[in-house]
């Protein structure tokens, strides 16, 4: 990747140092040990089951349908969720977890029905992916980390994991392996912090909590604005 350019940095930062009444600091600043760390107390020590309950509970508040499945029942629960969201056209990430959870057949069956369309994100197809996602009814993703407190899925972008899949379709369906559930954003932030220390973080880290919404008109909550209008989560017991 090409390295970008920096403009006007020194004059700007020297001015800041001058305002702060000291020499410019270019090294030696260490993030302090914060005196208060309440964020790690939330849902501390809870089991995966307890966290899953909190997640289910929060889903009701964020207008998100939450279903449970085991690895055996997942194909049927997924089928049911797809039907409830109106079926028709689906765009999936190219993600090995679909295969791991034996969902390939479910999608083949879906695609074999007259009038249904299925598209799997394929970097080689370029813009075609976005065009399909734009007219798709359902985008399906897997959660990379899931936050019980806020009902949030963290999605990390990658070649096969386009940003558009969770954004452009009318609805968003997320499969959540139970082991990915953590108490809150703090644990996910620590993961990304470690990625940053190791090199770079994915170009797009998305924390998504249910469907898009707005309260800009008389503070009335409207669910569904530019992002998906409906969202469904399926929490699946790990294999």
């Amino acid at each position, binding site marked *: *990747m090409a390295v*970008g*350019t*920096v*403009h*006007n940095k020194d004059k*700007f*930062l020297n001015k*800041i140092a001058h*305002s*702060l*009444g000291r020499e410019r*600091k270019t*090294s030696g*600043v260490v993030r302090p040990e*914060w*005196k*208060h*760390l*309440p*964020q790690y107390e939330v849902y501390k020590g809870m089991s995966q089951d307890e966290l899953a309950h909190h997640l289910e509970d929060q889903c009701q508040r*964020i207008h998100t349908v939450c279903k449970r499945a085991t690895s055996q029942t997942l194909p049927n629960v997924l089928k049911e969720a797809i039907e409830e969201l109106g079926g028709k056209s689906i765009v999936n990430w190219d993600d090995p977890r679909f295969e791991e959870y034996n969902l390939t057949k479910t999608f083949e069956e879906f695609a074999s029905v007259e009038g249904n369309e299925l598209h799997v994100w394929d*970097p080689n197809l370029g813009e075609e992916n*976005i065009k399909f996602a*734009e007219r798709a009814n359902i985008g399906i993703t897997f959660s990379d980390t899931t936050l019980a407190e*806020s009902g*949030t899925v963290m999605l990390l*972008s*990658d*070649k096969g994991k386009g*940003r*558009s899949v969770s*954004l452009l379709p009318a609805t968003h369906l997320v499969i959540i392996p139970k082991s990915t559930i953590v108490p809150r*954003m*703090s644990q996910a932030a*620590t993961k*990304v*912090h470690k*990625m*940053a220390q190791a090199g*770079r*973080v*994915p*170009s797009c*880290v*998305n*924390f998504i*909590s249910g469907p*898009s919404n*707005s*309260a*800009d*008109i*008389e*503070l009335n909550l*409207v669910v*569904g*604005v*530019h*992002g998906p209008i409906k969202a469904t989560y399926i929490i699946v017991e790990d294999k």
Partner: protein
Amino acid sequence: MGIKTSDDKFFTRVDKGINNDFMRKAVSGAQERMQGRRLDSISALGDWEDWRNLAEEIRQHTLENLDFYLEQLADNVVKNGGNIFFAETAEEANEYIKSVVASKEAKKIIKSKSMVTEEISMNQALESLGCEVIESDLGEWILQLDDHDPPSHIVVPALHKNKEQIRETFADKRGYKRTSDPKEMALFAREQLRKDFLEAEVGITGCNFAVAESGSISLVTNEGNARMATTIPKTQITVMGMERIVPTWEELDVLVSMLARSAVGQKLTSYVTGLTGTKEEGDVDGPEEFHLVVVDNGRSKILGTQFQSALQCIRCAACINVCPVYRHVGGHSYGSIYPGPIGAVLNPLLGDYDEWKELPYASTLCGACTEVCPVKIPLHNLLIEHRRVMVEQAGKAPFAEKLAMKGYAFAASSPSVYNVGTKTAPSVMGPYSKNGLISNGPGPVKLWTDIRDLPELSKGKDKFRTWFENRDKGGE
């Protein structure tokens, strides 16, 4: 436009606000609902004071070392293929943004909500190039369609408008034919803007917080429009106030958690999006070119002063949502894109005392703002500090206050003069009094009696001193 939204004088703006019954009802209703939601969401967090202390500590540390963290940010932005421009003034920022847009020969620009781009009047700068600049946040889009009506709240910009007014705007400007049901109107916005998102060559966003350790920027949103603006267009420009930065993702967590709760009472907004550089090799969506513009525009002159804590602000509007003055006069009365207590503190700093001398007085000093601020900015103390600076250094206290203070200083300088004053006042005020109340007083009293009645001054016997002496003697 800059931060200033009106050419009217302060009291003209306030009169308009006070007499706008719909707006006042909307604002008081909104304040109650926002406060209720905020309280619900913070009570679930455990020890809110610990959270506030942590957030304050993070903001203070970052500001004390701002040059270091901005340099780290710059290093990481360019490492990830992005470009970074440090703009000392609004003009520098706009020149750079214009040069990027011109180099792309872009005609259509889609924007997500950003206060700092309002502050530097970026839209006008780009429109001068012949570009169409489209606001995609629902509230901002409504205001833009309504001939650029100014925002009245930093989180809910169209708070002062009712749904019927919005329906009329949609009908007039876009041929909207459906009802004023917010659901139908939001769906209309989705349909109308989808095409713009897909066609725009450049997406422009603000930045809630940049993350120094990875060169990332974060966007805290609900509608999904900021994700659109950073997913589809080939070029992304992000504009940030220079103080909006955290050291690492772990601090981002804390501040985003507090922002969502303090602003809208949500545990997290629907979307918290962290974007790092350009799209990576093999990525289909995301920008091919990324530009981060870091704006000073008067902020560095606040650093190192007694007002430095104002830069801790994370733009949640919790102070606005509890302010009794904002409740009565509404956002437009402040005459700035930054209304409410934080606006009354910031505007004289980003601008000057000449322009904004009334705002530090547009406060009851009740301290509700200070109490709710998630990053512990001592807002009402800063308002007092502004008053002190104006009186001591600039001599810019409002005329009425100067006159009153001078008069009081003279009157209070000697007990005999003071006594004469308090004894003669009732007869001076006599003609204005009716049934023991004064509702249309003269001179400086008028400002008070325009809004409420003043009790008639007591005559002779029961004025305070007389009453006190009498009480000492055992009487009533």
